[in-house]
């Protein structure tokens, strides 16, 4: 992007290309550009570098409009329910969060509520050993809500500070599976008032516009309170979260930047916005 350029049609086309390639989506990008054109005429912004700075600030402000911090229980275990479509990184993200909290000296428990996929429980079990967290499991093919139920019980009885609940990947288009997820959440809230304190939807940063549908549906069914944007260490920019934050009103709280336990960061709007334009 050549800086100190005149704001002309060519510049706006180049800008639209950058935004679309960052997965903002064509309609969202078009709106961003038309809003920006209206704004810069009013402010008499003369060159492209000033316009770019103005745009980045707008994005940062949008990402900050919602609370991006994790919500904790005032007392007793904080229950974090983790959901999302298949293969996005839920189980690995739970391993990372477990490490994150263990590093803070907290007692962490994991609920293996994916009773469906081959070796899902084994995968989570390996993570529990890796980070020093307890794990509550049920029988393969058993009721995932029952595992969540037992885990909340165990978390309270054993004084766990955080309980992370892993669920099976499910496409938001599968009504019966979304119902099952709603039931898991329902069982958790009945067992412990106020729980789950955080409902995280894990999104794969390589996902395109379908992420908006995922966010919309998961929010409708289990009232998602935060996004965990995984796989941001690739070349995908994850720009689709801008539309999700604005239209579905869910803040981005965490990002995954690799496959190791420490590859998790609290979401930073500044570096994220910079990344969109790189």
């Amino acid at each position: 992007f050549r800086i100190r350029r005149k704001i002309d049609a060519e510049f706006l086309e180049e800008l639209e290309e950058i935004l679309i390639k960052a997965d903002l989506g064509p309609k969202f990008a078009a709106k961003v550009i038309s809003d920006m054109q209206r704004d810069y005429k009013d402010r008499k912004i003369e060159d492209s570098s000033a316009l770019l700075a103005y745009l980045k600030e707008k994005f940062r402000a949008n990402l900050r409009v919602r609370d991006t911090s994790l919500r904790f229980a005032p007392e007793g275990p904080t229950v974090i329910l983790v959901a999302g479509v298949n293969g996005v990184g839920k189980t690995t993200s739970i391993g990372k969060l477990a490490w994150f909290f263990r590093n803070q000296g907290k007692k962490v428990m994991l609920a293996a509520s994916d009773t469906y996929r081959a070796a899902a429980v084994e995968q989570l079990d390996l993570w529990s050993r890796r980070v020093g967290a307890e794990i509550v499991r049920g029988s393969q093919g058993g009721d995932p809500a029952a595992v969540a139920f037992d885990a909340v019980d165990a978390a309270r009885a054993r004084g766990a500070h955080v309980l992370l609940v892993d669920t099976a990947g499910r496409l938001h288009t599968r009504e019966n599976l979304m119902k099952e997820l709603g039931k898991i959440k329902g069982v958790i809230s009945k067992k412990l008032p106020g729980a789950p304190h955080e409902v995280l939807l894990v999104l794969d940063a390589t996902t395109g516009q379908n992420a908006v549908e995922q966010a919309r549906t998961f929010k409708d069914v289990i009232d998602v309170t935060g996004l965990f944007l995984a796989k941001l260490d690739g070349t995908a920019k994850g720009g689709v979260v801008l539309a999700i934050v604005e239209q579905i009103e869910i803040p981005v709280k965490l990002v995954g930047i690799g496959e190791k336990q420490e590859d998790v960061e609290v979401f930073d709007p500044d570096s994220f916005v910079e990344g969109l334009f790189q």
Partner: protein
Amino acid sequence: VITKSLKNMFEGFRTKGKLTDANIREGLKEVRVALLEADVNFKVVKDFIKNVSEKSVGEEILKSVRPEQQIVKIVQDELTALMGPSDPHINFSPSGPTIIMLIGLQGCGKTTMAAKLANLLRKKGRNPLLVAADVQRPAAVEQLRILGKSINVPVYSDEKASPPEICADAVAEASAKGYNTVILDTAGRLHIDQPLMEELAEIRKKASPNQIYLVADSMTGQDAVNSAGEFAGKLDLDGLILTKLDGDARGGAALSIKAVTGKPVKFVGVGEKIDDIEEFHPERMASRILG
């Protein structure tokens, strides 16, 4: 739905008289938005629109009775042609085992697809061996073992060796024990991870696969061309496999990946169960992308 709205838009123009160049360009603007919303790559869309507008602004369109129908048909035909042809045929090795290698980004469905392929080929009379060459993801070997057991297909693994060694040893085992099909399940990796991309080249060197398929998630966005381009550049791909088509992602990444690699889509994944594998239908994919 793009084809309905395209027809409606042209309907509006038509009642005012003949279709003009401007009308067509306006209509194609809507096609452009639809393709971008479907996650087709920016540059691929640009080339596609240019191609279709050149074809539709020609004399014969403007003089025909129902020009808007013709333009919709051009868009659909052009997309279908780009997505096709359908090619589920696997080039089996005339002597010795046929070795199929699955590669791709993390979480796209390789392990599940390995089992699906093994099951499909066994139903077609082949004698497959699954190879658990992912020794880095927790319980990856166990995952393939469980899947293999569910379909009665043996799984070769060796938790002490490196992936290239595992694959080489598995091929030797297959030759010795009479398995005529070997399916290598590799660990998911980033296309920008130099050492892991090099590992893929090493696996190819040691195991000499006959078929290398890039497995890609159908909900991938604009980044699809970056990752696919890198994988294709590092190894000679023989085909593509698209997964999770049972969702509602429009799947524009399919067009992008096809455009950047030039390789045929061999199979698609349409669910989590072993039987959820189908042949690829280019015309169905084209209308799905158009919405």
